[in-house]
């Protein structure tokens, strides 16, 4: 029959494209389901998941019946709430004053505000410990002045300040772009009714940023629930347990891990975070009355702070010096001294011993090279894969592309510790997957899964900006879907691919939470080595490793800035 011959003839290039699209979708689903499935499965099993057990709800009833876990829940939510307050206060203040006013020196402030984002939370926690911890440099200085320790960082408010500082850039990022796009005429209207500059900022500019504030506040809240570094460094010595440290100690610390309990706790954390993300989506869908961005181009206009300018600028600089600069100087000094104390000048204690320890053992050096290899190879691989994923979601006729997008974005709801446990169990459960155990490949896979939503978020807008008729015209001159994708769409979004790679590299370099369950001798990374040095009380080596990680980050960010500057014409 000629019709059926035509049918096959017409379908063959289509099926080639469909093959690639299905393969991409299946890999994505496996990546997300691999950690998710075992956790949910284990949470309903009465035995460890590698044994044959029966289905039960007992794990959940044990979890909720455990009085320790009640404290865990209370602590986690208190810390998350306080952290959100701190991060929002700092992030919103910077966004408002930098973007909407003529604050003196705001051009210098802008790049500095974002720096904590590039630094691992682990490094920030150690740095704060060295300066503001119970025997920290400035704590001791204060104690000598007033006789008692001026503050207690081993407390939930103390931890909230550190965590808030690490998450403030996120709030700044969302609020500053909202503030930049705000309609200046709304503020002018306020000024014309004789409201002062600060009054207008408080009553008009700030409420207009509400959607951005709510959005980022929920992100910070989720981020604080997921956070492992600060609870580990500051909570455990004081006996304060949190969700992540609970999973960490029950899953890893115990001699015989309680699989069912850990599974139930991890599943509960997943459910809470997923619920918060759904809430965030619902809140944003009703944000229409705050839409101030019109098609019309607006001249950027900022409020004149007048005499209030210098004191506000001083306050913001003081924050950056206290929260960012002093801890960073502290950790660098600590790396090059035998110990750090206000009683002795650090220059009398200068030493390279901390770095010498690292050089002495191949495992320590290996953790550095492993981190760089994972960040680079994993970053390139994940960029390529997410590009393919974005092509399938945005630029194909794949029947399940909308659903695929949801799957690809789901890892946002998977905390690092949970992902680590999930992949660890997946290797026990899936036949053949144990080959990956103890290799850097499982770390790369886990980190790539974690980075997928971020990379997709960096690529999707750029891909949407490429006119559909550019694909269509290529199709009409004879190019298949795959040829169009590789020859037209991807070359046009080179800058977005590059920024996705940058984000993935930095994310993978500082990732540690999912690695604590997955690393093994031979597959150490900087973060896990830092944690083991910390456990042994060797803070000098921790500082030395922190400095090395900061140096790699700094070099990479500088190189990335330079190369985007030379590639502007693309």
């Amino acid at each position, binding site marked *: 029959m000629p019709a059926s011959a035509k049918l096959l003839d017409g379908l063959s290039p289509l099926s080639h494209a469909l093959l690639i699209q299905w393969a991409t979708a299946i890999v994505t689903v496996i990546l997300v389901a691999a950690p998710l499935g075992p956790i949910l499965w284990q949470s309903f099993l009465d035995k460890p998941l590698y044994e044959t057990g029966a289905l039960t709800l007992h794990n959940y009833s044990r979890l909720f019946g455990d009085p320790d876990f009640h404290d865990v829940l209370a602590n986690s939510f208190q810390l998350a709430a306080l952290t959100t307050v701190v991060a929002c206060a700092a992030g919103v203040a910077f966004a408002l004053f930098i973007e909407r006013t003529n604050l003196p020196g705001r051009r210098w402030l802008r790049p500095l505000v974002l720096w904590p984002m590039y630094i691992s939370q682990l490094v920030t926690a150690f740095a704060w410990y060295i300066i503001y911890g119970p025997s920290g440099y400035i704590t001791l200085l204060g104690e000598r002045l007033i006789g008692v320790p001026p503050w207690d960082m081993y407390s939930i408010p103390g931890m909230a300040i550190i965590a808030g500082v690490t998450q403030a850039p996120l709030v700044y990022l969302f609020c500053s772009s909202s503030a930049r796009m705000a309609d200046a005429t709304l503020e002018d209207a306020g000024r014309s009714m004789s409201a002062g500059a600060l009054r207008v900022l408080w009553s008009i500019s700030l409420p207009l940023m509400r959607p951005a504030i709510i959005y980022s506040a929920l992100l910070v809240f989720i981020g604080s629930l997921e956070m492992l570094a600060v609870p580990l460094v500051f909570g455990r010595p004081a006996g304060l347990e949190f969700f992540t440290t609970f999973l960490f100690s029950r899953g890893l610390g115990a001699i015989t891990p309680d699989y069912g309990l850990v599974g139930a706790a991890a599943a509960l954390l997943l459910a809470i975070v997923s619920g918060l993300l759904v809430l965030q989506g619902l809140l944003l869908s009703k944000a229409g009355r705050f839409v101030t961005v019109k098609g019309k181009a607006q001249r950027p206009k900022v409020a004149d702070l007048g005499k209030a300018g210098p004191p506000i600028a001083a306050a913001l600089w003081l924050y950056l010096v206290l929260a960012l600069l002093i801890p960073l100087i502290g950790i660098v000094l600590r790396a090059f001294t035998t110990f750090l104390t206000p009683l002795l000048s650090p220059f009398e204690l200068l030493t390279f011993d901390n770095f010498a320890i690292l050089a002495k053992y191949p495992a320590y050096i290996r953790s550095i090279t492993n981190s760089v290899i994972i960040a680079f190879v994993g970053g390139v691989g994940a960029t390529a894969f997410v590009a393919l994923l974005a092509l399938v979601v945005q630029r194909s006729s794949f029947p399940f592309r909308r659903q695929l997008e949801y799957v690809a974005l789901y890892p946002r709801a998977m905390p690092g510790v949970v992902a680590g446990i999930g992949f660890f169990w997946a290797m026990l459960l899936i036949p053949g997957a144990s080959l990956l155990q103890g290799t850097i490949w499982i770390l790369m896979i886990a980190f790539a899964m974690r980075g997928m939503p971020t990379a997709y978020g960096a690529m999707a807008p750029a891909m949407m900006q490429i006119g559909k008729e550019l694909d269509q015209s290529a199709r009409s001159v*004879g190019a*298949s879907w795959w040829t169009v994708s590789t020859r037209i769409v991807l070359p046009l979004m080179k800058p977005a691919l590059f920024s996705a790679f940058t984000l993935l590299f930095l994310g993978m370099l500082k990732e540690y939470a999912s690695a604590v369950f997955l690393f093994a001798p031979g597959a150490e990374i900087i973060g896990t080595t830092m944690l083991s040095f910390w456990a042994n009380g060797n803070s000098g080596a921790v500082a030395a490793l922190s400095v090395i990680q900061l140096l790699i980050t700094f070099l990479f960010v500088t190189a990335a800035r330079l190369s985007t500057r030379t590639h502007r014409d693309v």
Partner: protein
Amino acid sequence: MSDVFVEKLSKRFGDVTALHDVNLHVAQGEFLTLLGPSGCGKSTTLFAIAGLDTPSGGVIRVGGQTFFDGAGKVDVPPERRNLGLVFQSYALWPHMTVAQNLAFPLKLRGVSKAEQAPRIAEALSLVDMGEYGGRFPHELSGGQQQRVALARTLVFRPTLLLLDEPLSNLDAKLRIKARGWLKSLQRQLGLTTIYVTHDQEEALALSDRIAVMNKGRIVQLDSPETIYRRPTNTFVADFIGASNFLPVRRTGATVDEITPVMTEAGVALRAVAAASAGADDGIVTVRPQHIRLSRQRPSDRGLNVLAGAITDRTYLGARHAYGLEISGHTLVAEVEEVLEPGPVFAAFEPRDTLLIAR
């Protein structure tokens, strides 16, 4: 042979039907225009032929090959159809030079490097862009980009040329120049062409035949002259510029194409009957520029005369457009004279009218 058969082409988006059983036959070498307002389905039809938009049903055949058959489940992907489509936005790939843009379809067809160069040069010289091969699209003016877009579709010798409002992004002067140039190029190459536009003037100037579309249907398919002089319905008449409509009743038999009719106000008129004007109730159309205005009733008994009043005046440059109120109906007349609002007589020749079905 590369004639086009479109049969019962339909397209539905959920509850909305964008195309209702469109039938079309374009002969080899013919220049056919799909004309209509935005949303009438003209671009949907064109994109369905190109394979970029999957219809809900119907058949598309080009040169004897079935590209789409809703019943037989045939759907040849766009890259297998070998049709040349020029986009409204030109869709030149911004990361490639002009020559690379033209080389891309040749590469896809396995044309050797040695053969590519002369074919690219030939296509570029066809559109007078021979010297611009090394430029990037953003370094060209709108008119130049438009010509490169055309060269890119001609370079691989498509069986059919599909043009989606290719001139709409050019300024008025350039558009008229490009029109003449496009038409002579099409004649020279003898390419079967389907052209989509909402500009009636463009359609009249370029086409062998025009298919006027409205709400997903072809409402008239005729030569430009017939479309202009003998619209078969009020939509086509309105779209083509005969914007005055007077409801009338037929009062006698047609003699030499002229039919006596009477308006609702009882004024006797004589009008040219269109083939479709069969029933007793009809509409008389007349173009604004065919109406003459005067304070006194014209003495010529051969003219159609209506008494009314001027309600408003708009300055158009060479002429003035007058809004007329004639026994409850609004008419528009375009004349050179300056007249003040007040009672007026509107007169027009019977041969400038057309009686069509209501």
